[in-house]
């Protein structure tokens, strides 16, 4: 019997190439390509009076320089607003190259194509742009005050105002025995994959086709955007996503100007053209996320049960809205987490500022929502003098209440209806992992040493596996090897391994014989992309279904060949046999038999030629059949699956320096059935590191004029090995999703969601003063201590 691969800690097949240095990232392809560089606005808000590019073409090695004036047709129009929403009444997008006005430092103004990047950058320096400066709107406060406008025709800087409710929250709060108000804030951060963005394009005049390699989370999205903007048919554009050096959301498509300009340049110049973003460009022209301010009104009873919750928040979406309202919609819905408030009302404003655009960053609006809800739970517990875990337990949706309808509409336009979960069991596990019940003993022991420690807990629910669909194609070759293609992309999640495990189980073939291709529109042109923890759920399910179809066909042909009943057959290690007999046939031979041949190309194919097989009275390929041993299928869920988790962290806050040290970090996680526990654990590790970054280090330091002051790895702090927990205690709970054949839920973003909430709680617990804004640095904590103890200072 073949060993079951699903659930096994299988080593990744991707790694051999990657550790040898033979991976292919986008900058590694097309060594003959010309290099593109982009002139970016040095001002956050300005009118472009004139652009003089005359000096550029005299530079040896420069092939072209283009500004907006050189663009034609759809390329000269604003970039698409990718996800329109009825409440996005004032959506605005930028041009591929700025027309008349720039709205953030880093906005693309001109493109130079040259022999190499050095020459292209030399040329950029020779372009003379005359600007008329306009006042910059930076930060939520400035946007809300609307003293200045980002776009003249957008009143109040408000792109959208959206609200949802379930019940009458205001009335429930008014009638509640206890009420609280909180103001809570999260700063801007960014994905910062180690590989920046990059695009290579090559126009083939012989085939009238464009080939594009791009470091993206959606090849089909880039393909559609390029075709639409360049006036090509989809069938003329191939997009290939090679190895991608991390995405975390920022490589989602809207599309980026360079993803359109590079293909245009390749077509116009008849040469391969490459754009490789440098790190400063990534800081000032690739998307950020997270910045939001929230006001909470909550009413609750003596047990801490929330009777009414009203949340009003303001979302800083930067200068344009190409990705619609996805991030604030997620915050507004997912902040409910594992809880069921009596009544809920939420309203947000999505605001323009003269800063880089905002699109989802791992967790996508959920870290903010989790922060708001978990700070509220802690505040309720403090107000009532109750245990913080008990207050959460009093508000949990119970295991017998699934599917649970929150009465709201989620980011995908579907009901916010949770499929499965067991939150009380999860709470028990996390309390045990972090030794919740004995923490006061630990605190006392530490206090005796003159040390200050705190414990924080944060719970979340994550809508994963959003539709609309993914597809897969499974091809069993005559060698018996299985080639599988799915359209979504991979950026380090180990898809080649996890998907091969699914195929090996369903088809009964050896794991080593399965090869997975992702993100190549030539192999699977129908796809959405890799984001929102959807790859395993969506493509995993589609691959499972496609493998099932291939298996059905294989068994049908094998039954004929073996003169047996389909129900009596089994496939083990790539060989079909009649159960309990010696009668068997390899899958590769079935693949040969599936394709009626006129010619014998090799020894194996002799078996399928016209004088050897088939009934001469019937057509070789039956009317309802097709040659080849293949299976293709698509998976489309009714709505999202809901993974969940709880994190607990113990910190020590240095009594003198206010430095925050992590003493223990614990995670309980439920993503349904695990495909590969090793990979899931890796995803949690990485997510926790990003959560630590978001809670303690990462922020975008814009000055009043809209200059990003920390646009380098010297100044924007991300966790090194020295900043993350030395170990993370992990426990799993598996509540299978009823929405897909494998019972799985997404696991990609979970680790990062509760970071800020858990750290805020732990620091508050250690310091006994309210933590309402994250991230928090030692100097900020030090200032908070002073602010909350003015009399103590005076009395010294």
């Amino acid at each position, binding site marked *: 019997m073949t060993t079951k691969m699903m659930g096994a800690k299988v080593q990744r097949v991707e*790694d051999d190439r990657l550790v040898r240095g033979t991976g292919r990232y986008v900058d590694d392809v097309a060594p003959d390509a010309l290099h593109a560089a982009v002139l970016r606005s040095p001002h956050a808000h300005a009118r472009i009076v004139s652009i003089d590019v005359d000096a550029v073409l005299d530079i040896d090695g420069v092939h072209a320089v283009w500004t907006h004036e050189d663009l034609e047709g759809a390329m000269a129009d604003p970039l698409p607003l990718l996800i329109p929403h009825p409440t996005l009444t004032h959506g605005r997008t930028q041009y591929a190259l700025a027309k008349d006005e720039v709205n953030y430092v880093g906005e693309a103004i001109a493109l130079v194509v040259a022999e190499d990047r050095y020459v292209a950058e030399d040329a950029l320096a020779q372009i003379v742009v005359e600007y008329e400066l306009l006042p910059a709107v930076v930060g939520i406060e400035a946007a809300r005050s609307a003293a200045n406008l980002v776009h003249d025709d957008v009143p109040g800087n408000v792109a959208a105002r959206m609200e949802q409710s379930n019940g009458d929250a205001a009335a429930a709060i008014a009638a509640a025995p206890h009420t609280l108000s909180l103001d809570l804030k999260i700063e801007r951060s960014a994905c*910062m994959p*180690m590989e920046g963005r990059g695009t290579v394009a090559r126009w083939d005049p012989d085939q009238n086709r464009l080939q594009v390699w791009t470091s993206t989370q959606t090849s089909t999205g880039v393909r559609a955007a390029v075709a639409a903007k360049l006036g090509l048919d989809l069938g003329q554009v191939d997009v290939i996503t090679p190895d991608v050096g991390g995405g975390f959301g920022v490589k989602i498509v809207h599309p980026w100007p360079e993803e359109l300009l590079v293909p245009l340049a390749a077509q116009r110049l008849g040469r391969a053209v490459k754009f490789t973003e440098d790190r400063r460009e990534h800081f000032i022209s690739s998307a950020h996320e997270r910045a939001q301010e929230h006001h909470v009104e909550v009413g609750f009873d003596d047990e801490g049960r929330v009777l009414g919750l009203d949340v009003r928040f303001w979302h800083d979406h930067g200068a344009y809205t190409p990705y619609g309202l996805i991030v604030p919609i997620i915050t507004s819905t997912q902040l409910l987490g594992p809880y069921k408030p009596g009544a809920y009302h939420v309203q947000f404003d999505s605001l323009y500022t003269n800063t880089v655009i905002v699109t989802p960053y791992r967790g996508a609006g959920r870290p903010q929502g989790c922060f708001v809800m978990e700070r509220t739970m802690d505040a309720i517990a403090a107000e009532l003098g109750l245990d913080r875990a008990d207050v959460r337990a009093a508000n949990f949706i119970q295991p017998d209440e699934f599917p649970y309808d929150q009465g709201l509409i989620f980011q995908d336009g579907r009901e916010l209806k949770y499929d499965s979960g067991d939150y009380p069991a999860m709470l028990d596990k996390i309390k045990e992992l972090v030794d919740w019940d004995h923490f006061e003993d630990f605190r006392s022991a530490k206090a005796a040493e003159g040390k200050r420690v705190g414990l924080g807990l944060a719970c979340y629910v994550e809508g994963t596996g959003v539709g609309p669909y993914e597809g897969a194609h499974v091809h069993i070759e005559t060698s018996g090897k299985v080639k599988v293609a799915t359209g979504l992309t991979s950026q380090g999640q180990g898809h080649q391994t996890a998907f091969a495990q699914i195929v090996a189980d369903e088809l009964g073939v050896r794991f080593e014989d399965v090869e997975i291709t992702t993100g190549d529109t030539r192999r699977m042109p129908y796809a959405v992309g890799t984001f929102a923890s959807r790859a395993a759920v969506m493509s995993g399910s589609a691959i499972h279904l496609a493998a099932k179809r291939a298996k059905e066909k294989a068994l049908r042909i094998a039954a004929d060949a073996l003169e047996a009943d389909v129900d009596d057959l089994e496939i083990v290690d790539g060989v079909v046999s009649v159960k309990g007999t010696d009668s068997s046939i390899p899958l590769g031979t079935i693949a040969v038999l599936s394709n009626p041949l006129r010619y014998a190309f090799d020894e194996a194919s002799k078996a399928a030629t016209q004088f050897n097989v088939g009934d001469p009275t019937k057509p070789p390929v039956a009317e309802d059949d097709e040659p080849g041993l293949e299976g293709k299928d698509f998976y489309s869920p009714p709505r999202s699956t809901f993974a969940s988790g709880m994190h607990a962290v113990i910190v020590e806050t240095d009594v003198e320096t206010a430095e925050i040290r992590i003493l223990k970090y614990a995670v309980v996680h439920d993503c349904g059935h695990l495909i590969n526990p090793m990979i899931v654990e890796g995803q949690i590790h990485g997510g926790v590191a990003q959560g630590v970054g978001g809670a303690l280090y990462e922020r975008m330091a814009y000055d009043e004029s809209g200059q990003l002051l920390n646009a380098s790895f010297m100044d924007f702090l991300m966790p090194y090995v020295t900043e993350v927990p030395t170990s993370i205690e992990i426990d799993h709970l598996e509540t299978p999703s009823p929405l897909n054949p494998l019972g799985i839920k997404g696991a990609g973003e979970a680790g990062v969601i509760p970071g800020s909430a858990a750290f805020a709680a732990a620091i508050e617990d250690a310091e006994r003063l309210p933590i309402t804004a994250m991230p928090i640095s030692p100097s900020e904590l030090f200032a908070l201590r002073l602010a909350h103890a003015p009399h103590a200072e005076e009395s010294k």
Partner: protein
Amino acid sequence: MTEQTHQIRLHVNGVEHEAAVPARRLLSDALRHDLGLTGTHVGCEHGVCGACTVLVDGQPMRSCLMFAVSAAGHEITTVEGLARPDGELGPVQQAFRECHGLQCGFCTPGFLTTITAGIAENPDPTEDEARDMVAGNLCRCTGYQNIVKAVCRAAELARSGEDGAA
């Protein structure tokens, strides 16, 4: 105006290469674009992330902070040079696979070269020493716990390799 180039010889992974490069060409770009050794990755181009780390005469160096002309005459090892002569993975590469020390793989070559130099200097690191060894390299995917495990495992494999060779 045409930029002046310099004819240099670069010794990389035991092979001598010739290249004509401008004085300002970074070693990272020369390795990747002139020599086609694309295993060395550029993550920040300001010497902080460590993705471009190569060994220069055995010492880890940021190839994005070094000019190609100044590398002439030195022995350079890139990630492509870490496999064993028989083509099998070297100990650090093997350890990264075993311990799930990589996800997207972009920062990995810099970690592999850094650790190769690290365990040559300290063949039996404690966990704290393993952590110190990789404390100058950024990874955005793994959370580092498995990288630290991989350092210890690599040291173990390297030690047993030496024993086995006897």
